[in-house]
């Protein structure tokens, strides 16, 4: 039931409950001061295993909600969609009071979501706790998320206790006998322990590996032992006799641990409680004759002690109350248990009501769970030193390498003292948004006597005012009617109502204004104090995740505090905590100060804290290790407002959402898309709802993000699609081939394509021709160029300024890097074809820094190389081709335009080299130009003209846009312009056309963006993972088993174009046992040719005449073309005869 979200709708709004219940705020404040009796714990489990229901029972024990409603209300699910969907979506905290004998405890309970999409919320909860209650469904057993939360608890070093929930389902649904139920429970316990065990072994193996790598040199003796034998793991496992397991049915309100029964029976049977405790769980039976507890119940076919003494009682109770509804028996049971049942419960038509009335008094679940929690889970004082070190050492840094002052802070952690002198250390694990109206200071409170008096006075005043106003109005009216002027009658009355209106308006405006203020969301930090006493209004340092205490300490003056003015230290800021709150589920209670070891909410940090942070009064404190998230966000959608004018609201809303959600990522892409990345579909839905209803308050739409492609050329293939050698075969001429041949070998008067792929283009006025050839670049070169984008960009800048004769001081390192790049290129471009190619590089493109280049292969044309900034560029040959030099820029611009959008689907090119092999500017152009040289003014003009046009790359665009104007203003005096356009402009167009044609003359391919995809999966779902990957064109690179666990790690690549919905599908198909992570890795050539049609006989046989089997590249290309509104070669109707042509009214 991983995906199914049952709708348990409960009208929760009607239950108005008193937040503090029976325990007063003062009591809790008093309890907060005693860390020894404080427990910070969270409830973890798989989705729908009953976390929130259990939390309800615990909350009910404090009288915050009625025990009747416990399990139905789900008090901690305060969001509307949580209630509607019936799953928890956020972690929320509540402070509970529990007294066990003479000891009084404060429990800071955090309920967490179980759905995998919200595992980030689990991380935020787990970080703040010392212990955890792991809930397991007695029917479903260990589920994927159970494993995940156990792992999370393990990684954060927190101690878990186990609650096996929903035992009633074993009785009522599965109809197991008590004996069967016992074996079932045993199995579940084994499953849970197996998970813990594997976590333990993997840790031991890891430690061993580390040790080995440290000491590997030296001793050659191989150590056979894995270290597992020595490591003690007995404390880790769950076992009822250890007292860390509770059997419960939270919905019926009962639960017990072995201890409770041991105590009951030790009194009744006269056996020592300790003996019973050891034997109550396990293969023991009661020998009635010998009055002895014996071993080996299973072998002898006897009932185990647990079955006989515990389960049978419960089974008979269920039998009597629910199944048979035997009134007399019930009464007997009730009296024997010493329980009081109210008459209305016993008369209720639903037997469950009676059952829970009996059970919740007989074996109250809150009692069992809370006492276990208080006994077994550590208090903040018992925090393990190991955990502290882990928290404080960020990344790979070892704890003992931290500054000394920082290491001293460890003591503060361990002492957990709330003294005035102890440094305050607080960790904020998430920020959550609260309606400003819900804050305690804005909440409606009962009015004090004074206030009531004041208000009464105000009301009286207002009334008096109104009376006088009325009087004057009527008086004036009377006057006027006396004068008999009926036409003016209306006016004064209108006036008086006017004034009245304006006062009304003012008050209305005031209300509206405050309402607007109130609508805003306030961010509250979900945090825990680890040391020191936190006071309202206190100023603290906010330590960013990259803050380095060593650096901070050296930069800050000795003994400096956050209230001083702080010098600039990276990743450090100051902030004051405006108010502190006690978190009580939906409600917040304002506090003046919070001592160490407690969970709290802090207001006033939204400016400094994005999602999580460490706060401290001491700059020596290191930032805590970042939260480790089980699920990384991978579902990407593009978000747009329904109405384009609401863009600013959307941006603001997305900013808020980003802060309020620990896992969601928000980014704006270069294309202008606003992309939201979430952990899964349910999470996405929640984020969209939040955006719509809370943060942006506008209509939005989410869609598939735009997928980028690249275009490239490859070497002509040697074999055809059926792997036959191409050379030997005869091409089959078919009808549709003929047409293509015509376009291939077309040579109009301005364009000529020769069979070797050399394209010659002449500009319309026949004054210049240019010949270009496209050559595929080796893959390594493309990669290198792509990696060194920044470098090429700076190279271009240096060149630009050098050209203008300016001197620029470039750092030596940049120059070295440029020289290094050149050397690497030379190294990669070897062979006859590339001889001296690197020296001849003319320009990079697109945008002057892309992964394509232009090669100067013109004979006799020497130009400055792009590397001339390296100082070796000789100026020889500059004079030789001065005529065409003026148009140098036009060629480059044409190349830039061509590489920016390729002919396949107007996407940028990648890994293509254009080699200019011939370039003539015919004499008819030159004399004109030379003539103009004599006339000073005109030559300047021509030069300026060519320069402008050349560097703009836009002649076509600019002229397109101002076509009308330019028509009128076409300068008649321009020397080099004729009836077409200026030569330079024509040359740009010609060069662009030449590049495109040259590109098309080679075998073209599409390049797809690829994700690397890492999937963790268990062995049994491996096949399905492969299935999903295969369906989406993914390719598995390798898989390996994680040592010490049964998890496999699969590494695969997946086209970005196929990734939409991938995460969801893989989770669905593997019931959540596999969790993928996607990271963009590289561009990959799609092997199929988008323009491919069968040409050889073999291909004919294999694919048929039309070759309509799926062509991936064609599919992508057409999708992009369709999106951009380009022409797509597709038939509007496939079969002419089979269209519906009758119009509707005939």
């Amino acid at each position, binding site marked *: 039931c991983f995906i199914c979200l049952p709708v348990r709708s409960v009208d929760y709004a009607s239950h108005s409950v008193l937040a503090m219940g029976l325990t007063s705020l003062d009591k809790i404040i008093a309890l907060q001061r005693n860390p020894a009796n404080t427990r910070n714990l969270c409830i973890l489990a798989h989705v729908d295993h009953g976390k929130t229901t259990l939390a309800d029972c615990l909350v009910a024990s404090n009288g915050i909600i009625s025990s009747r409603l416990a399990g139905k209300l789900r008090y901690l699910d305060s969001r509307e969609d949580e209630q509607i969907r019936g799953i928890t979506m956020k972690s929320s905290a509540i402070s509970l009071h529990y007294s066990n004998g003479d000891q009084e405890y404060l429990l800071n309970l955090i309920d967490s979501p179980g759905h995998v999409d919200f595992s980030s919320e689990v991380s935020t909860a787990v970080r703040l706790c010392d212990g955890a209650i792991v809930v397991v469904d007695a029917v479903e057993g260990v589920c994927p998320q159970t494993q995940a939360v156990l792992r999370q608890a393990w990684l954060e070093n927190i101690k878990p206790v186990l609650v096996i929930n929903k035992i009633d389902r074993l009785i009522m649904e599965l109809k197991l006998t008590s004996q069967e139920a016992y074996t079932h429970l045993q199995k579940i316990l084994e499953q849970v322990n197996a998970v813990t065990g594997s976590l333990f072994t993997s840790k031991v193996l890891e430690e061993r590996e580390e040790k080995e790598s440290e000491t590997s040199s030296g001793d050659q003796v191989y150590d056979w032992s894995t270290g597992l034998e020595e490591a003690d793991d007995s404390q880790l496992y769950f076992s009822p006799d250890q007292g860390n397991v509770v059997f419960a049915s939270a919905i019926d309100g009962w639960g017990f641990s072995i201890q409770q029964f041991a105590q009951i029976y030790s009194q009744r049977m006269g056996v020592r409680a300790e003996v019973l405790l050891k034997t109550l769980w396990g293969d023991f039976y009661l020998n009635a004759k010998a009055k002895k507890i014996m071993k080996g119940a299973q072998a002898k076919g006897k009932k185990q002690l647990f079955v006989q003494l515990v389960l049978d009682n419960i089974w008979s109770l269920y039998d009597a109350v629910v199944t048979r509804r035997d009134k007399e028996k019930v009464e007997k049971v009730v009296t024997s248990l010493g329980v009081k049942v109210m008459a209305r419960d016993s008369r209720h038509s639903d037997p469950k009501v009676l059952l829970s009335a009996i059970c919740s008094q007989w074996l109250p679940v809150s009692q069992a769970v809370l006492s276990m929690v208080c006994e077994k889970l550590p208090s903040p004082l018992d925090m393990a030193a190991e955990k502290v070190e882990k928290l404080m050492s960020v990344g790979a840094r070892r704890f003992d390498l931290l500054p000394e002052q920082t290491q001293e802070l460890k003591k503060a952690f361990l002492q957990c003292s709330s003294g005035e002198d102890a440094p305050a250390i607080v960790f904020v694990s998430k920020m959550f948004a609260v309606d400003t109206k819900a804050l305690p200071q804005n909440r409606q409170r009962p009015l004090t006597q004074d206030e009531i008096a004041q208000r009464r006075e105000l009301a009286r005043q207002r009334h008096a005012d109104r009376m006088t106003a009325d009087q004057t109005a009527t008086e004036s009216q009377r006057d006027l009617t006396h004068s008999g002027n009926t036409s003016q009658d209306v006016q004064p009355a209108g006036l008086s109502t006017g004034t009245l209106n304006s006062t009304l308006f003012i008050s209305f405006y005031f209300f509206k204004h405050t309402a607007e203020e109130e609508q805003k969301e306030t961010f509250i930090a979900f945090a825990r104090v680890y040391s020191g006493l936190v006071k309202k209004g206190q100023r603290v340092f906010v330590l960013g995740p990259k803050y380095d205490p060593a650096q901070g300490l050296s930069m800050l003056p000795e003994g400096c505090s956050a209230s001083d003015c702080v010098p600039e230290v990276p990743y450090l800021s100051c902030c004051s905590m405006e108010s502190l709150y006690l978190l009580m589920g939906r409600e917040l209670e304002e506090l003046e100060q919070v001592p160490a070891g407690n969970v709290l909410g802090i207001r006033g940090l939204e400016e400094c804290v994005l999602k999580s942070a460490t706060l401290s009064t001491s700059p020596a404190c290191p930032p805590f290790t970042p939260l480790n998230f089980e699920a990384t966000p991978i579902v990407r959608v*593009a978000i*747009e*407002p*329904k*109405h*384009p*004018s609401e*863009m*600013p609201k959307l*941006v603001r809303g*997305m*900013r808020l959402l*980003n802060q309020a959600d620990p896992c969601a*990522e928000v*980014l*704006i892409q*270069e*294309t*202008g*898309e606003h992309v939201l990345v979430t952990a899964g579909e349910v999470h996405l839905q929640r984020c969209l709802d939040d955006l719509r209803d809370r943060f942006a308050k506008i209509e939005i739409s989410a869609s598939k993000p*735009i997928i980028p492609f690249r275009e490239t050329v490859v070497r002509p293939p040697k074999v055809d699609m059926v792997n036959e050698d191409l050379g030997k075969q005869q091409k089959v001429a078919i*009808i549709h081939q003929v*047409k293509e041949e015509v376009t291939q070998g077309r040579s109009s008067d301005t364009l000529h394509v020769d069979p070797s792929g050399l394209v010659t283009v002449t500009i319309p006025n026949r004054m210049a021709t240019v010949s270009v050839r496209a050559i595929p670049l080796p893959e390594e070169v493309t990669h290198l160029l792509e990696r060194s984008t920044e470098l090429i960009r700076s190279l271009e800048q240096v060149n630009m300024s050098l050209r203008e004769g300016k001197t620029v001081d470039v750092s030596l390192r940049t120059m070295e890097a440029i020289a290094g790049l050149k050397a690497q290129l030379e190294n990669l471009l070897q062979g006859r074809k590339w001889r001296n190619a690197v020296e001849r590089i003319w320009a990079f493109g697109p945008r002057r820094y892309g992964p394509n280049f232009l090669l100067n292969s013109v004979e006799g044309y020497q130009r400055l190389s792009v590397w001339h900034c390296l100082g070796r560029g000789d100026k020889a040959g500059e004079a030789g081709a001065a005529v065409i030099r003026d148009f140098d820029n036009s060629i480059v611009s044409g190349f830039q335009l061509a590489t920016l959008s390729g002919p396949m689907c107007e996407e940028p090119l990648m890994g293509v080299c254009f080699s200019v092999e011939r370039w003539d500017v015919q004499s008819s152009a030159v004399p004109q130009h030379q003539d103009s040289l004599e006339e000073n*003014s*005109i*030559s*300047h*003009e021509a030069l*300026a*003209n060519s*320069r*402008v046009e050349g*560097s*703009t*790359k*836009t002649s076509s*665009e*600019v*002229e397109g*846009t*101002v076509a009308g*104007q330019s028509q009128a*203003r076409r*300068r008649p005096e321009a020397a080099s312009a004729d009836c077409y356009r200026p030569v330079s402009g024509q040359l740009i167009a010609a060069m662009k056309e030449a590049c495109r044609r040259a590109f098309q003359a080679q075998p073209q391919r599409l390049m797809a963006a690829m994700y690397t995809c890492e999937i963790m999966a268990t062995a049994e779902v491996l096949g399905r993972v492969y299935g999903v990957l295969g369906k989406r064109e993914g390719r598995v690179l390798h898989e390996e088993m994680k040592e010490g666990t049964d998890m496999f790690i699969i590494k695969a690549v997946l086209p970005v174009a196929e990734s939409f919905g991938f995460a969801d599908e893989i989770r669905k198909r593997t019931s959540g046992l596999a969790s993928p992570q996607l990271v963009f890795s590289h561009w990959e050539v799609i092997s199929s040719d988008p323009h491919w049609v069968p040409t050889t006989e073999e291909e004919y046989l294999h694919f048929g005449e039309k070759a309509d089997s799926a062509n991936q590249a064609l599919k992508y290309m057409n999708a992009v073309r*369709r*999106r*951009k*509104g*380009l*022409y797509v*070669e597709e*038939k*509007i*109707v496939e*079969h*002419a*005869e089979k*269209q519906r*042509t009758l119009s509707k009214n*005939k």
Partner: protein
Amino acid sequence: MSIFTPTNQIRLTNVAVVRMKKGGKRFEIACYKNKVMNWRAGAEKDLDEVLQTHSVFVNVSKGQVAKKDDLTKTFGTDDLTEICKQILAKGELQVSDKERHSQLETMFRDIATIVAEKCVNPETKRPYTVSLIERAMKDIHYSVKAGKSTKQQALEVIRQLKETMEIQRAHMRLRLVLPAKEGKRLKEKLKPLLQVVESEDFDEELEMVCLVDPGCFREIDELIRCETKGRGSLEVLSLKDVEEGEEKF
């Protein structure tokens, strides 16, 4: 004379007629609907999927076949298929519904793509996405004109969109170098054309880096060239002044 009653009236339902006037005579061929444009674009390669019959008519709806003499006289051949191909390529036709629909849709997309390429959100200096522009175009009820070029229509759309949303042409960044003499005078003239002046350096020459609307480029170019007699110069630093790279919140 045939009696024109509903029963013996044959409706030409799946027929698109392509007409051509040549040599003073009118010739028609009977084709299938929604196919002729595909044939002309080269997407449909099978002639039998386009032509109902390989015969040439004088009037398709009346079923009058063209005389052989006329055909040889005007086309110089009596190969009907060849003549049909000629008429298909050059004749005039009524565009069928689906053809028109897909044509308009393609143009609509094209216009939106051009607008998205040319424009930015002035507040963030980031481009809008094509789908957002499409929606905005639908909101202002823009109707595509099949006869006008998409580029022209895109400029029209930008003008209209400005009224409903924050949008403007992406600015060009220009560097102007003006001789000192004319500098002051020219600056006054240029001022209304420049959107933002980013830097101004006045020593020997006046050097300005500024953002301008691409529509004004030609004017500025003209102004500088005419007024300074070629001594001033103009250089385009970037075509589109937009934010680059991804931004993470």
